[in-house]
């Protein structure tokens, strides 16, 4: 602790220089690693995590890349990402089109996980959210073409809940029904059996990560009829409601169209059997097909 001699000054300078050199060199390496870590978060849309997997950001911190989930998967669904693959190295994923999740009731992959990367509180596989199936291409889906393929619907382990067939008339033939596979995200576990089973060369239905597949209404928009149901009454004073005239093309007339604001107070003709196609009673006022 004495006044610094030239020698200790030189030594101190050397120490500071060496430390700065090291900090800069290692800092550069760290910057590269950090940016690579950011990149590795971009999980490709078709790479699905095992059931119970935390959100991707948390998953990459919790998963220790041991592969126990892969080992205990009885169907060889899961694989560990290799360095050249666009999934964080060593983490488990599966590709639905190749081998989907068979939704084992005892969920062995979660049981095998030594960390919280796969949420151990998930005990009912039906509650899993590996992704959400989306009928992504209606132009090639055979059912949308009016054929009866139904394969995605039939292989769905949560049939009639996660995928239902919704009837619609076939405008092309004019006399057939189309049964449109419709996914209900509330029940879809993202197992990927539909995607794997799709008979097309490229699947028309695909399982996407929930963040990609789902819209979000947001807090700024509320659905009126649901709020009405919750409140037990309309949220506004309906007697004060102003009915604006319906906008129609110039000189257009729609027989049976009910539009008080335009002075048309004639109630719509409620004749299902008329078959003239001029009014569809099940639709709200003003939405009938033009003749």
């Amino acid at each position: 602790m004495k006044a610094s001699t030239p020698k200790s000054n030189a030594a101190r300078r050397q120490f500071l220089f060496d430390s700065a050199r090291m900090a800069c060199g290692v800092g550069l390496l760290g910057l590269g690693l950090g940016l690579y870590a950011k990149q590795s978060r971009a999980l490709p849309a078709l790479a699905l995590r095992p059931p119970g997997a935390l959100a991707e950001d948390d998953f990459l911190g919790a998963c220790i890349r041991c592969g126990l989930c892969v080992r205990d998967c009885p169907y060889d669904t899961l694989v560990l990402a290799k360095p050249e693959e666009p999934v964080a190295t060593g983490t488990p994923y599966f590709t639905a089109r190749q081998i989907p999740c068979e939704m084992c009731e005892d969920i062995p992959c979660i049981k095998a996980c030594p960390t919280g990367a796969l949420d151990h509180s998930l005990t009912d596989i039906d509650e899993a959210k590996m992704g959400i199936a989306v009928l992504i291409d209606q132009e090639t889906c055979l059912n949308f073409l009016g054929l009866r393929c139904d394969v995605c619907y039939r292989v769905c382990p949560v049939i009639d809940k996660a995928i239902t067939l919704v009837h619609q008339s076939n405008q092309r033939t004019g006399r057939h029904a189309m049964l449109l596979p419709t996914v209900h995200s509330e029940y879809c576990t993202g197992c990927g059996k539909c995607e794997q089973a799709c008979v097309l060369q490229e699947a028309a239905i695909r399982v996407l990560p929930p963040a990609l597949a789902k819209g979000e209404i947001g807090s700024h928009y509320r659905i009126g009829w649901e709020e009405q149901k919750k409140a037990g009454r309309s949220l506004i004073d309906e007697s004060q409601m102003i009915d604006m005239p319906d906008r129609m093309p110039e000189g257009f007339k729609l027989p049976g169209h009910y539009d008080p604001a335009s002075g048309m107070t004639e109630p719509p003709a409620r004749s299902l059997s008329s078959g003239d196609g001029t009014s569809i009673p099940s639709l709200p006022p003003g939405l009938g097909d033009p003749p």
Partner: protein
Amino acid sequence: MSRQRIGAEAVAAKGWLEAHRWLILRRVTQLGILALFLLGPLAGIWIVKGNLNYSYTLDILPLTDPFVALQSVLTGHLPETLGLVGVAIVTLFYLLFGGRLYCSWVCPVNMVTDAAGWLRGRLGIKGSAHISRASRYWILGMVLVGSVLTGALLWELVNPVSMLHRGLIFGIGAAWTVVLAVFLFDLFVMSRGWCGHLCPVGAFYSLLGRWSLLRVSAPARQACNDCMDCFEVCPEPQVIRPALKGEAQGVGPVILAANCTNCGRCIDVCSKDVFAFDLRFNNPVSTVPSAAPATD
């Protein structure tokens, strides 16, 4: 190349087998551990599942790499019970038996860098880049801080150790390029570069085993004939001098430096049997036999 090969004297004095005893034991252990892991995927005999990051043996023994677990904890995620028990078992083991025992007896990259080191000697490659051996501690610090900042297991993105081990068990993919890069780096760029200067896994284990019981000692150091073979063969030669040449400074014969990997190669190559495995407490300041306790 007029100089004799390293350990030639020892081979002449003790015979080839005795002069390679610890090396052979080490290779058998390294390959044996690897074989245990491979028995499942290759032969369907599931004794050990997983890899060096975490393994589960005979459905009873969990073993977790404490360095990987530490990175995970720093991102804010605690392992489950089995994972934590695994950390405790592994940590306790290396606390007792020497942290860098992992490097020389378990780590699969050791065989790669040892091969590079051996080939470097055979080819007579001399030049070597100069980076401080303390670099690994800086990298270790960077990885731990970086794990906090990025929320990812930072080193696991590039770790050649886990890439090679996982690759051998689960499919190597392009991981062999990383392993080859480490080999070529050690061969042409820097002598003992990866394990001795850069690898933060080894740095972590050296800190873990800082006060471990099991140590290499030089109890017969007065028999040293300065052939320098131990310095030549040692992957961390700086650890030897204080113990081997410490008689005059009153330093005991036990190699206490954290970076001794307990590989035992110095024991093998010494024709005078200077070195032996010992406990850290067995460390008298003087090893000269005639020196009676009364002389101090």
